[in-house]
């Protein structure tokens, strides 16, 4: 299976403090993963864990400090011309978190739609652009009459559908969706999640779904990447990760998810820790201060991802050691 998008050793540091400051914030550190065609990958983690920074690098808003992003096998660092840039942002568009801030309020909804069509698909005539706008509106479950409305006439859920329609009009291969449902009401969210699944199943689009809501990730995603303090803590097929979490952070995260159908779990109650700000970090596991299982090695060696179950990796010394012991005995 060839990856649609492949990220290798992606790193992004920010200089912080005054002009003379030598301190750097490690927002994303040495992250590698892939996204296949027709796949929804959920990128989950607490705020500050680096998930939005990854999306912004994929959207070419930020340049990586080091590491490479390959889209359809070609490195993004080789994009030079405006034409290549336009082509890439059409193939990999972004849907934003805030449906109230991401549509220009002074124009009708069709304004942004038709403009991006004109820019990204210049081969279409004016009539074809209108036709295409109506088609994508239909796909995302909006009445094409809505094109004539002003943004203030639409509800939050409808606006977020407009966001997906705009992305879809560019015939994308991968949509970067940064918390697309977190500002919507509970009763509306499911409709958007169903839409994301439909785009994957019927339009063949892949989606990078960035969220802190594990339950919604499980609802739509095929694979899960759990971030902690700028690094991947655990990744794998989502059902396998949720059923057999190997990293203590994933276990903590899962125990904290509010779930009326589950008994109250105890693990999260004892944790009053906070994710660290990763400024000029020394080697070692970044979760060790909060980790109930931490051993001496954790303070000295940064754990690398290792496959502990089929296609399911975790970056944890303790989990890796116990997996090896199990292997040695069997």
């Amino acid at each position, binding site marked *: 299976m060839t990856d649609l998008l492949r990220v290798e050793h992606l790193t992004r540091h920010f200089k912080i403090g005054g002009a003379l400051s030598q301190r750097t914030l490690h927002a994303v550190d040495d992250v590698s993963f892939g996204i296949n065609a027709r796949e929804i990958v959920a990128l989950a983690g607490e705020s500050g864990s680096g998930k939005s920074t990854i999306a912004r690098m994929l959207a070419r808003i930020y340049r990586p400090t080091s590491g490479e992003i390959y889209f359809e096998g070609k490195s993004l660092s080789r994009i030079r011309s405006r034409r290549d840039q336009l082509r890439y942002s059409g193939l990999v568009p972004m849907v934003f978190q805030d449906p109230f801030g991401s549509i220009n309020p002074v124009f009708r909804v069709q304004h942004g739609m038709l403009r991006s069509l004109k820019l990204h698909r210049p081969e279409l005539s004016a009539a074809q652009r209108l036709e295409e706008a109506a088609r994508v509106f239909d796909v995302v479950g909006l009445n094409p009459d809505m094109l004539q409305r002003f943004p203030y006439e639409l509800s939050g859920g409808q606006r977020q559908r407009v966001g997906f329609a705009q992305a879809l009009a560019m015939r994308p291969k991968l949509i970067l969706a940064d918390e697309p449902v977190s500002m919507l009401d509970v*009763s*509306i969210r499911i409709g958007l999640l*169903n839409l994301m699944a439909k785009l994957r199943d019927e339009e063949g689009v892949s989606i990078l779904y960035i969220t802190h809501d594990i339950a919604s990730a*499980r609802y739509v995603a095929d694979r899960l990447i759990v971030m902690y303090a700028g690094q991947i803590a655990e990744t794998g097929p989502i059902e396998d990760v949720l059923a057999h979490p190997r990293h203590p952070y994933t276990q903590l*995260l899962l*125990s*904290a998810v*509010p779930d*009326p159908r589950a008994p109250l779990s105890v693990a999260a*109650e004892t944790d009053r820790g906070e994710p660290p700000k990763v400024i000029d970090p020394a080697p070692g596991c970044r979760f060790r201060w909060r980790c109930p299982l931490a051993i001496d090695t954790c303070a000295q060696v940064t754990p690398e991802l290792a496959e502990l179950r089929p296609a399911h990796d975790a970056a944890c010394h303790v989990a890796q050691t116990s997996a090896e012991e199990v292997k040695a005995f069997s």
Partner: protein
Amino acid sequence: MQSRVPDTPVLEVSGLSVDYLLDRGSVRAVDDVSFTVSRGEFLGIVGESGCGKSTLLFAVAQLLAPPAHLAAGTVMFKGTNLVGLTDRQLSAIRWQAMSVVMQSAMNALNPVKTIGAQFKDAMQAHGKPSKEEITARSAEVLRMVGIDPVHLRSYPHQLSGGMRQRSMIAMAMLFTPDLVIMDEPTSALDVVAQRSLMVQIKELQQTFGFAVIFVTHDMSLISHFSDRLMVMYAGQVDELGATKMIFDRPRHPYTQGLLEAFPSIRGPRVPLKGIPGNPPDLSSVPAGCRFHPRCPHALDRCAQVPPDLSPVDGDLVRCLRRQDGSLS
């Protein structure tokens, strides 16, 4: 984690209605809401944005500002009707007997003052404590929420989101209130911090015995913490009853829809539908039952007859078909 529920009400709200007076006429944001909160009880209020839950809280705390205006109803707090009291009279009750924790601690704390200075302000505004009393009590309440008292000298930006929210709760505890009103205090937090804050609120409540009104849009969040639950839709109460009862057997189709809109991390993966449509604009609410345009069980009469809130199996439910038993 259900706490004891003695029956003396600390708060009794009856027939409360709030209008927003706008140029195009008035809009009723809270329509004839009545409920009680017993001493030491945890009442959860859930609903979508625009259902009137925050306006209701403001009305209870007598914090409404124009264009909002209390149209009818009484708010009996420990035997006193708060409606119509002057600011001076309210000041004696606010913070001492009833305190409010607002939604976003990022905005609720003054960014240019230390935590300690803000605690001092609150204490001096509602009493005449000595310097020593202020320092001692400030340190004590911070310790209660698990923050080191050295942070009294910290500015809000030096604290994490969870710590800021916890210091807001500490501030609400400066005096020993009988009622703490919380408006989505955890909505800006990550799940882990959110869960730890909920547990902490519950612990404080069990230690000090104050009552809590907790407003949220996330029903699953309070499932393990609230004693009773009030579900609001379009300015009205749709369902009111014991939390466990409502989660086990939701009676109102809207409550059912809300509960079915949550994906779970456990059990089989099932397709969910959510609730079709959108909550109504309060300036033009549907005739009859306000939920009927989105309701899967609506009949013709639901569009004509507005249902009352009346008892069904021990809960209060606003649904014609539940009340006459045609929906089981």
